[in-house]
């Protein structure tokens, strides 16, 4: 039996969570104050994931950059592959929140979507 101490990142409360494991099986989760914390802890010790946010260059818009995010969380070890894929990408204004700017980023099956409205110049 082993234990891992985590800080939940589900929300800004940052609950201190203790996960008890039997080999690769999670046997107990304590310290969380909501179901989100339980789900986070189980995932963090087996398959950690993150939402990635970054920026992409804009052509013909009122701002030179548009901020983007992964439409859902991607495996933690794919974060750098994800931002690498955004290098050199240029988005044409007008851009609306939710527009897909790159699909299936780094083979994760997750799209990169715009997180800001950018009107055309």
């Amino acid at each position, binding site marked *: 039996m082993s234990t891992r101490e985590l*800080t939940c990142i589900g929300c*800004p409360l940052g609950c201190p969570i203790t996960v008890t494991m039997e080999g690769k099986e999670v046997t107990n989760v304590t310290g969380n104050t909501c179901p989100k914390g339980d789900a986070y802890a189980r995932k963090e010790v087996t398959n950690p994931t993150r939402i990635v946010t970054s920026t992409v*260059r804009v052509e013909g818009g009122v*701002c030179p950059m548009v901020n983007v*995010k992964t439409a859902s969380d991607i495996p933690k070890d794919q*974060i750098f592959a994800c931002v690498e894929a955004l290098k050199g990408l240029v988005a044409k204004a007008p851009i609306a929140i939710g527009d897909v700017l790159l699909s299936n980023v780094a083979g994760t099956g997750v799209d990169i979507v715009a*997180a800001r409205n950018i009107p055309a110049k």
Partner: protein
Amino acid sequence: MKNYDLVIVGGGPAGLAAAVSARDAGIESILIIERDKELGGILNQCIHNGFGLHTFQEELTGPEYASRFIAQVAERGIAYKLNTMVMDISSDKRVTAMNREDGMFEIQAKAVILAMGCRERSRGALNIPGFRPAGIFSAGTAQRLVNMEGYMPGREVVILGSGDIGLIMARRMTLEGAKVKVVAELMPYSGGLKRNIVQCLDDFGIPLKLSHTVVDIEGKKRVEAVTIAEVGPDRKPIPGTEERYTCDTLLLSCGLIPENELSKSAGVTLNPVTSGPVVGDNLETNVEGIFACGNVLHVHDLVDYVSQEAAAAGRNAAQYIKNGAKTDARTVEILPVDGVRYTVPKFIRPQEMDDKLTVRFRVGGVYRNCSIATYFDDELIARRKRPVMAPGEMEQVVLDKKKLGDYPNLNKITIRIEEA
């Protein structure tokens, strides 16, 4: 001179939420004045996610969170002026502002909401020794350069201060290809949210050195190296603990200061602990008809709380415009003691306050397994256990008007941290 019922100074999250709630409370004549070229304030450069969990039950990026409030302002047809700087607010609520189109102009308002936000503590205010080369930025300036303007401030980075913006920028610079060598924090604990330490430092193996500060900056034209040293309990550097990091950039994330120059010129009394106005339960300052909300009042940890507080300020300002000043002279002071650094509001009017009133505050150190205790005079009213409390995170107590009705002779409310 133009006339408006309500002038809101600042078009960031606080100003937007205040405008929406004042309009919904029946105030037609509202003007928001914003000095930047767009509404949304600092949220526009906060591209990380995590905003709006309380307000919208989802995790939004800063611009997404702002866009929802901007849309609400647009739907209601609330007027705003961009690229406009307020120069002065008088105690009789005359607002002097200027921009390129209108030049200098005056507005007579019936009520004013202060929503100017805060600014970062600068190198000058920190008294860091060493040369003064290029390459030293506040973390927020770097954030704007990277996220909005598309420039990289540097390649090899040292960060002083572990406030949230510093932590967020440690990750952001790393993702953009920079090497963040260390984050040094003067205090023995981080000033940022725990989740940001996990997601922004631990995820990328960036070391956080608590009880450390910058003791030297090298480089004449551009930063060439930064030396940090451990500090003792007196926060003075300990000789012999110096470590030198070669780098081209130093980011400073050493605290935020509410921006209250305008408040002062209006005669608003400030609380030296928060550097923000002293307000009562309705968020009104000592100057009748001038209200405050958001980071100009006290620096918040979550924008959701800013929106809630600003909505209350908007409602209260509407109430004032329609019905005039509060009549109940009886006020009860809230005393922050034993670890509670301050409270907002600082006093309440038990007969006129909202049915449920949220009192927000911060603690002065890290407390484990302690409780937040509320006393009406010497009687313990409520005790809430908190596993961990830290200065980086706001705490709250909710006061119940009905309960207060049972204490007609109440002199003071005390909020303190106690061993559980």
